[in-house]
């Protein structure tokens, strides 16, 4: 596993195995079977694990959404009671935001950033593994509450004092708070890791302004995470101390100000929404050029507008608090600041459209989702601009009009982008092409379903239906056939179509795994570095690290201008890859698997569990963590050369990680 000998040989070399024990345990050595996954530090395996887990949580969050829609399909719904409904929308949002979109983006980042910048792994492979396990255990921990007396029921922004122990006596919010703390650790370690990777691990010649846009947008996202996660960490700690140790941070009777929570939450929360969307912006900025057969229009503008969004995104959080009673000065300032964000985002929309313009468009499923994003996200973005007008927002806030806004940007934006990425990168990861025909159905059902579900919510909201209502009544639904009742039912039907659409994707995965088409080396005639590897990539990604001299390096290796200024193909993908193979590094030293990441991560939910039920359990968890940390600290991340059986020579060793 750890050392790869002579990669060019067609046979996969049997990896040498570390023999001695440096930590408290012998190093794990399996290269197959479950152990090869559980103890892996390979960014690609971790990427797959992140994504697979996220997909699972998507289904969970989606089922919760469908229950919400069934409850609201008719007046005075009886599917859920008030208590369950409140848990349902809280957990739906939590699951979708923290356990689906964020980790899915982290999965793609993990898998593709090293490939896109020409690296063999991330900067800190073991931290990477730890991050995944922390996310997984955190996610399971939050959802455990369903079986331990009820899940969190305060809404995803968990406003105090409604989230305090008096008003939410079940343990749901305790699980929520501590679970998010754990997934927060995962995000933070991930951010440190990926930023370091992008800044430090680029292939020779891969200047910042030659980096693929996906990597760029992820870089911005990781910076947002780096600085936003600690803010919610503070908020969650204050809430935990109030709920579990009797502090009074949000208890008005003791003189607290409930607006403190709102500020802390949204200082995190607004950057968070860009954390959710920018990865998808990155994906479609890769996909659109490939299937337009021309470079991304205005690459530097897209880069800088991404950075600008990340930056301005810090100055607008109070637009979620226009009705909170901030006073007119704050409201006016934040209102105008919020409008400013539409400008860099508009730059992106313009550039995508201009990328299509004059191209030679091929409508693969990935491309369809990308184009879908442009239109649907713009609808959502524009309703966002109508919220940013503070006086209007006082009519809109906490109605379904807001729900419409954020589902358009999240579903039509973030999720369409991710789906575009799935179809685009599937052959890279699994070596097989997802079925395009089924994919087309998948796409259209999702487009129709999503517009049917969330489109009417604009109407519902503007006609006065508040959000977070477990029932609505005919009395406030208005007259006529097309009253709010009609649109509620319509939206619920839409959500079922949406479900079928998503289901088709799952079916597509199964069909593809069973008997999907083996992907050619370069199925899309792609442009960036991740395609300059085999499908799926070898464990060490590149036989030799390419030297980069262009944006869209791969394209420029395949195509050159002829005498008339026409682009003509000069090499096939196979030839390009062959060149890399011919110069293969003889002896590549990859980071070795480790037990410690999962052990440390396992300690975290134990500590959290103890904080809710009994402190001694926390101490046990603390001991597990400490034990793991020590094992980790004395185990070298890459097994040294004399730790192999038989020992290898150190000559020509290429270190990674």
């Amino acid at each position, binding site marked *: 596993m750890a050392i790869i000998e002579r990669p060019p040989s067609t046979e996969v070399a049997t990896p040498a195995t570390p023999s001695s024990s440096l930590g408290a345990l012998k190093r794990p050595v399996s290269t197959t079977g479950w152990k090869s996954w559980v103890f892996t530090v390979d960014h690609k395996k971790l990427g797959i694990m992140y994504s697979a887990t996220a997909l699972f949580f998507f289904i969970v969050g989606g089922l919760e959404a469908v229950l919400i829609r069934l409850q609201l399909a008719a007046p005075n719904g009886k599917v859920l009671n008030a208590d369950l409904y409140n848990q349902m929308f809280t957990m739906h949002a939590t699951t979708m935001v923290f356990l689906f979109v964020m980790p899915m983006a982290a999965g793609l980042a993990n898998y593709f950033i090293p490939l896109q910048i020409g690296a063999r792994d991330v900067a800190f492979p073991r931290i990477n593994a730890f991050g995944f396990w922390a996310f997984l255990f955190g996610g399971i921990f939050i959802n455990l509450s369903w079986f331990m007396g009820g899940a969190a029921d305060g809404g995803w922004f968990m406003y105090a004092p409604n989230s305090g122990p008096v008003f939410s006596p079940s343990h749901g919010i305790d699980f929520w708070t501590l679970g998010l703390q754990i997934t927060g650790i995962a995000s933070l370690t991930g951010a440190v890791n990926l930023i370091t990777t992008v800044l430090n691990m680029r292939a020779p010649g891969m200047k910042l302004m030659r980096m693929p846009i996906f990597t760029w947008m992820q870089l911005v996202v990781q*910076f947002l995470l780096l600085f936003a996660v600690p803010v919610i960490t503070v908020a969650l700690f204050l809430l935990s101390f109030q709920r579990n140790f009797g502090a009074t941070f949000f208890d008005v009777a003791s003189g607290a100000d409930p607006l403190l929570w709102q500020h802390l939450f949204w*200082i995190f929360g607004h950057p968070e929404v860009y954390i959710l969307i920018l990865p998808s912006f990155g994906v479609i900025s890769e996909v659109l050029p490939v299937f337009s057969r021309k470079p991304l229009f205005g690459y530097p503008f897209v880069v800088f507008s991404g950075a600008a969004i990340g930056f301005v995104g810090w*100055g607008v959080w109070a637009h979620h608090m226009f009705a909170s009673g901030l*006073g007119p000065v704050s409201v006016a300032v934040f209102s105008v600041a919020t409008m400013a964000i539409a400008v860099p985002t508009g730059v992106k929309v313009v550039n995508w459209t201009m990328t299509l313009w004059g191209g030679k468009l091929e409508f693969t499923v990935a491309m369809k989702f990308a184009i879908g994003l442009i239109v649907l996200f713009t609808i959502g973005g524009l309703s966002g601009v109508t919220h940013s007008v503070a006086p209007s927002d006082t009519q809109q806030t906490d109605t379904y009009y807001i729900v419409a806004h954020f589902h358009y940007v999240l579903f039509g934006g973030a999720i369409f982008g991710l789906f575009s990425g799935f179809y685009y990168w599937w052959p890279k990861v699994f070596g097989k092409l997802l079925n395009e025909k089924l994919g087309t159905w998948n796409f259209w059902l999702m487009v129709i379903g999503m517009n049917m579900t969330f489109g009417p919510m604009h109407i519902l909201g503007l006609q006065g239906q508040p959000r977070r209502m477990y029932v609505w009544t005919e009395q406030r639904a208005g007259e006529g056939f097309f009253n709010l009742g009609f649109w509620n039912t319509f939206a619920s039907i839409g959500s079922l179509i949406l479900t079928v659409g998503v289901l088709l994707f799952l079916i597509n995965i199964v069909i593809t795994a069973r008997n999907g088409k083996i992907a050619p080396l370069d199925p899309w005639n792609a442009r960036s570095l991740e395609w300059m590897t085999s499908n799926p990539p070898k464990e060490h990604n590149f036989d030799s690290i390419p030297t980069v001299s262009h944006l869209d390096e791969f394209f420029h290796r395949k195509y050159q201008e002829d005498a008339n200024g026409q682009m003509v193909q000069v090499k096939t993908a196979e030839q390009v890859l062959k060149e890399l193979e011919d110069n293969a590094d003889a002896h590549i030293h990859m980071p070795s698997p480790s037990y410690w990441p999962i052990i440390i991560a396992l300690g975290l939910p134990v500590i959290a569990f103890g904080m809710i039920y009994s402190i001694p359990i926390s101490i046990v968890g603390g001991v597990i963590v400490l034990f793991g940390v020590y094992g980790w600290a004395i185990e070298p991340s890459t097994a040294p050369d004399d730790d192999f059986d038989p020992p290898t020579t150190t000559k020509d060793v290429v270190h990674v990680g």
Partner: protein
Amino acid sequence: MTTETHSSTEHGMSNAGYVKIALILAAITALEVATYYVDFGPLFMPALMIMMVVKFVVVVSYFMHLKFDNKLFTWVFYAGLFLALGVYAVALATFHFFS
């Protein structure tokens, strides 16, 4: 960002230099504590803030080598610092903390 400077090992300061800096820091601390006993009038707050910032910057620049190290580190750290200052100051301002 692509400067090939090698990390901090070779440069930095002599041990005597570090001791000197520590002495300065100690002196400032003494002054700070003095404000508690002596009435500085309207100068009190600004003086205290300036001393705090000076101490902060000195430790970060010299003990933590930021002054000698790659600019990237400075950039990353101060980005976090100024972001924190900015958002929290604005948040406190909405509570009329400064007025």
